[in-house]
């Protein structure tokens, strides 16, 4: 059966990008305000799922030709390596470090090792969610 998804598809083209950008903003803002890797990751994957709904698995796989299982693995690796980085400095595992820098345009911002950890979480969440959706979705 062929359905007419024109409205959904047109909206999705715009909305998906807005959602992804917003999710990135939430991910980075998660530092001193509500947000972070988990929420950001869920939101990004919801954008991809919206694409999946509007188009189909094949089209989306064409747009984003990635293996989401590798997302999980690399996210985990990033998080664990960040956490165990503190072993090198002889402090307890997962001890974080931060500093403040002045960058042109962005101004006075804080840099934090927790962001790297959170990036790992972000990748894992996107990877896990998309793997689940694909696993259930592809065999119809």
């Amino acid at each position, binding site marked *: 059966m062929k359905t007419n998804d024109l409205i959904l598809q047109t909206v999705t083209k715009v909305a998906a990008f807005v959602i992804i950008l917003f999710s990135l903003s939430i991910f980075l803002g998660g530092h001193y305000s509500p947000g972070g890797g988990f929420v950001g990751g869920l939101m990004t994957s919801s954008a991809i799922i919206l694409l999946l709904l509007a188009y189909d698995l094949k089209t989306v796989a064409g747009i984003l030709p990635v293996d989401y299982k590798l997302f999980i*693995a690399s996210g985990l690796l990033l998080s664990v390596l960040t956490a165990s980085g503190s072993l090198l400095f002889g402090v*307890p*595992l997962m001890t974080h470090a931060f500093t403040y820098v002045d960058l042109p345009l962005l101004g006075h911002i804080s840099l934090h090792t927790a962001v790297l950890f959170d990036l790992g979480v972000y990748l894992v969440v996107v990877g896990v969610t998309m793997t689940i959706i694909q696993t259930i979705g592809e065999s119809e």
Partner: protein
Amino acid sequence: MNNLTILPVLLPLLTGIILLFVTKSIIIQRILSMLSSIIGIGIAGTLVYNVSAHGIIALAVGSWEAPFGIVIVADMLASLLVLTTTIIVCAVLIYSFYSIGEAREKFYYYAMVQFLLVGINGAFLTGDLFNLFVFFEVMLMASYVLLALGGTKVQLRETIKYLLVNVIASALFVITVAYLYSVTGTLNMADLSRKIAEIGQPGIITVIAVSFLIVFGMKGAIFPLFYWLPGSYAAPPIPVIALFGALLTKVGIYSIFRTYTLLFYHDQGYTHTLLGILGILTIIIGIIGAVGYWDLKKIIIYNIIIAIGVITFGISLMNEQALIGTAFYIMHDMIIKAALFLLIGIMIKLTGTNNLREISGLIRTYPVLGWSFFIAAISLAGIPPFSGFAGKLLILQGAAAESAYLGMAVVLLSSLFVLYSVMKIFINGFWGEEKEYPKKDIPYKKLLFPAVLLVAISISYGLGTEFVYPFISQAAETLLHPDIYLDAVLKE
């Protein structure tokens, strides 16, 4: 501050993640997991040595000091269990190389074994109740995958039940943690121990203690909550059963051990009596199953339940001898159960059936298998000088000191029935007329190696009791005097 404590968790985690990248090459996966588990044994050995030399080592993760942050605490019991676990995983991995099959190896089998190890080691080492829940879940998640991996009908069917039971147990765990948090305002075990000692364990804490007993009892399969175990454990292939049977239930029992000696020890008249009764009933149920079945896997699986009953009974006695005995017995049982599962695994491979009635006369062709099984069997039953003896003897002495004569009688009788159930396998399976079995090409010697290795470790554990004793008595010392644990963690 000592990062050594976290390494038994970190190493398998890192290995597991790297294995996720190399699923295509089985050889690399095998080499990596073997390498990691050998290094793991080294680390665990160092940990045991350090704890015996310097006492409990605590690590405040992320430099957030206890009671505010999560602490990883290596006391003697935990480090010894970690060492035992890594050794068993190493042996089972060797066995897996030749028996688990390419399909499973390509679908994250080795990675999942590593994640299972993360969960188990983490659960042993953590000093925070909620963190214990998290490590439990890591372990369970890996176990779900290992149980379902392969996707045969029996496995899928049993995984659903196993999963459901554990989901409910986990929800109950969360609920109980919530209650405990609302009463005490902390989840750090050392801090909890101090606060509960201050308020002297009123009724509400006892209720929470019993809820924890239900939660851990469900995972550890003690008396009314064991019903899921025989079915689920019979479904997966032998290496997975060996891992589950040797390790998973022990984690549940270890948690009871930890909470009932560190936190809820003020109202022993109620909680520990209950524990003792449940232990005895568990033994009886296990005996009924072990004696009644003629299925190789089922007999050993019911022997797990018997062992859990004995351990639970040992914990309930709460005196020095009984605790030393229990700690002895847990480790003995982990090693010997893994060995037995691997041995019957070889029998099943050789004959193509797990019905004991269809097997006989194996000893003529496979003498090493037969005699290893014999040694493992009498060691399981606790015949001196093998490893089951010392633990049981100490538990019985402890029971005598508490005048728990009924329990003593049941534990003694259980040894007899255990002996009967495993001798049933030996006499029927190895003696008698030789039978023709459909010829199958199996790497007999390679499969036998890890099993014999475990039996040898078990023998030396039994013969070297004198050598091991100081370590275990140090473990029991900490369990009997929570202050040692408190001082090490809270550093006041």
